[in-house]
């Protein structure tokens, strides 16, 4: 069961990787404009200069050949260099990935802790008003609007906005995520509370705290699967949030690589993201099995 799951995951990851890189490359290539347009802007290079740059970048070959070459390079580990900044793509992507991982892990952990605390208040302490108010406020605006709002508040109170730092994007993601995830957790818990085994625990005279933990334990696998999904999205790039606060994560990297048609970086981004997402998928499946004894038993 376990190993077949891994094998299945790896196969899926492999396919996703190939499709994702090819797709993003084709989209970027079919979009008008290329790195030479970016380099020369409103000017035009002479035909000979254009040809020279094209052949150096391999843009003179047929499109399917370019895709095949990129695939080969992904697997041979030669991810090339950024067209504009000569830095190796692996290094560029790694830096951004680290920033995004940091953001994603922190946002996920904090959001989860906050949601559990709120759920605890409402389920085990009968304080429903505060959690409801917070979650309604949080889900009243999309993430990007929250980002702008938080920035406006800082500007009005003359608190320095730490552009490029993790503080504000993190706050934004936590604030904007809490509402949705609290609601998911809450409804999962409510469903759990209506299960007969909780009734049995109540009959046994367990304390409310212990019953809350029991219910939490019961819903955690499903809850974590949804949280992991969002964590993956943040790693792939919380584009709007990163752009607002100039946070150098994967989202900003994608925006820049696309607008400057930096193909090697784009491919590197797509490859990394598909590997990460596939891995996360696998991890969340495994975690789900590990945490849900019913699935474990079926092996």
């Amino acid at each position, binding site marked *: 069961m376990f190993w077949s799951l891994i094998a299945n995951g790896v196969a899926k990851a492999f396919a996703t990787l190939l499709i994702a890189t090819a797709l993003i490359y084709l989209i970027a290539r079919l979009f*008008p*404009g*290329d790195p030479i*347009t*970016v*380099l*020369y*802007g*409103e*000017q*035009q*290079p*002479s035909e000979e*200069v254009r040809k*020279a*740059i094209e052949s*150096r970048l391999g843009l003179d070959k047929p499109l399917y050949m370019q895709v095949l070459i990129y695939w080969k390079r992904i697997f041979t580990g030669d991810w090339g260099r*950024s067209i*504009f*900044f*000569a830095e190796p793509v692996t290094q560029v992507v790694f830096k951004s990935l680290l920033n995004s991982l*940091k953001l994603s892990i*922190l946002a996920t*952990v*904090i959001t989860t*802790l906050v949601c559990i605390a709120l759920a605890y208040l409402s389920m085990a302490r009968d304080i429903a008003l505060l959690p409801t108010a917070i979650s309604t406020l949080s889900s009243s605006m999309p993430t990007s609007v929250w980002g702008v709002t938080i*920035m*406006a508040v*800082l*500007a*009005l109170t*003359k*608190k*320095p*906005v*730490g*552009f*490029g*730092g*993790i*503080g504000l994007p993190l706050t934004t993601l936590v604030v904007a995520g809490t509402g949705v995830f609290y609601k998911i957790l809450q409804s999962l818990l409510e469903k759990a509370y209506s299960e007969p085994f909780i009734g049995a625990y109540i009959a046994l005279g367990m304390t409310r705290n212990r019953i809350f*933990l*029991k219910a*939490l*334990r019961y819903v*955690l696998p499903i809850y974590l699967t949804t949280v992991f999904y969002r964590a993956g999205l943040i790693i792939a790039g919380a584009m709007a949030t990163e*752009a*607002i*606060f*100039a946070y*150098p994560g994967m989202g*900003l*990297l994608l*925006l*820049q690589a696309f*607008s*400057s*048609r930096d193909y090697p970086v784009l491919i590197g981004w797509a490859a990394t993201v598909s590997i990460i997402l596939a891995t996360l998928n696998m991890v969340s499946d495994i975690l789900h099995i*590990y*945490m849900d004894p019913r699935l474990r038993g079926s092996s």
Partner: protein
Amino acid sequence: MEMRKTFKVIVPLVVVAILLLSIFLVYEYLLPPRATQTPATASTQELQGTSASLTIAIPTDLSTIDIQFAQGVADFEVLGKVYESLFRIVLDNGRLSYVPWLVKSYKQINETAWLFVIRDNVYFHNGKRLDAWDVKASLERSMRISPIGRMLLRDSSGNPIISRIAVLNSTAVVLVLAKPFTPLIENLAHLATAIMPRDIAEKYWSGPINSTADVIGTGPFKLVSYEKGSKAILSRFDRYWGNAPRISRLTYLILPSSSARIASILSGSADVVVGVSPDDVARLKSSGLVVYNATGVRLVLVAINCKRVPDPRVRQAMNYAVDREAIAKNLLKGFAVVANSVVSPVFPNVYTFKAYEYNVSKAVELLREAGFTNKTLRLLVSTRSPKDVQLAQAIQQYLVAVGINVVIEQVEHTAFLKRVFTDHDFDLAIYGPSPSSLYYALTYWRTNASLNGPLYSNPVYDRLLDEIASELNESRRALLYREAQQILWSDAPAIWLYFENIIVATKPNVKGLQILPFQMLVLDNTTVE
């Protein structure tokens, strides 16, 4: 039993989470920032303010770190602090002029030979002394691969203007021209002809500089670090030959979102913010910030594809159909000057014409005369600037009112550049050139010039440009300039709209800031009190 299993899962999760959290929090907030200013030890009056740091929020990222490949405003703003050219463009009483800079003196020997004596006390950021070989290599590289350098230093048929650069000794060079070329000095003031060390020019002989370690100029600031999409940090160059700037550390924050830029200055994260929207001026002023409203050279226009709209009467009609005053007043809140010339009047020899006044009936009449009825034109606009999109909607309204159907097509910026300047696949397109000199601005419209997106072509105009280049008599040259501008104005390869003002906001303690009409900040005398 059940309970213990639950804890086996939750407790480690929580512990790991809290650990990670505290590590990150300590890392981000509690550790002292790594790049803080070392406090000034000297306390004399004279040294006060000399170790000030300045943070400037700019709207666009650098497109390159190679000054000779620089195109955008951000490139020149940042790299223009690192590099210098032989001449410098200065603003004096509202007029631009070109003064010798890395050159101590110069002399025209004959019609086609110019002698330049280079300053002997200039050092590059790597400690090397500037010599004539650096000048030769830099100019040759610029002529060879710099996109703008190729425009500036080549004639209409693509041949280099400078046929030979002869080094006489370590501080003297002679530029031998292929034929007389009067705009030479103003073109040598453009940063696309900036001077870099010879070995770097040769290392990057056929491609752009792509390592920050090789960004070495003679300017007052050197590049410390550049993080793409985030910020560029510069520090004062201690061996700078000229007057040392009062700013010791210069940070450019790249903030494309206009609300982020406004927040950066309101919150105190930035000292200066560039690219302020007219809509935000009142708010910034009421918050006690200083707002500069400077003349700009960026001429915003609607280019008309002359291959698709060949009749000048139709193009003139479009000029009559648009109410520029209303656009400047309403859309730009008065932060624009209606264009009565084809190039900004801050340049010498620019001639101002009778405005195309807003006249719907005249426009309709011209269109009827030309038989241009029931036509639909596609208006291309780049999504990079929200103002341009609003402008496109206004233009659409005006043209519809005279019977021309307009379909607006919004495209991403790189795609826009390709459509307009490479493929010429558009009917109308909104953009705004920012030239460095009158002659350069006029060459945009030369037949087959690479900036000639609308494919305008008039042999008389082309001939006039050649004559200007070779006319040594200044007053006769002024007349030729005037004639060329007259032709362009009435041939109307574009709807001439307005010159955009440059709006910059600073904290009240930032003093002595000067703004060049190219949207470049001059920090020579800037202080932070």
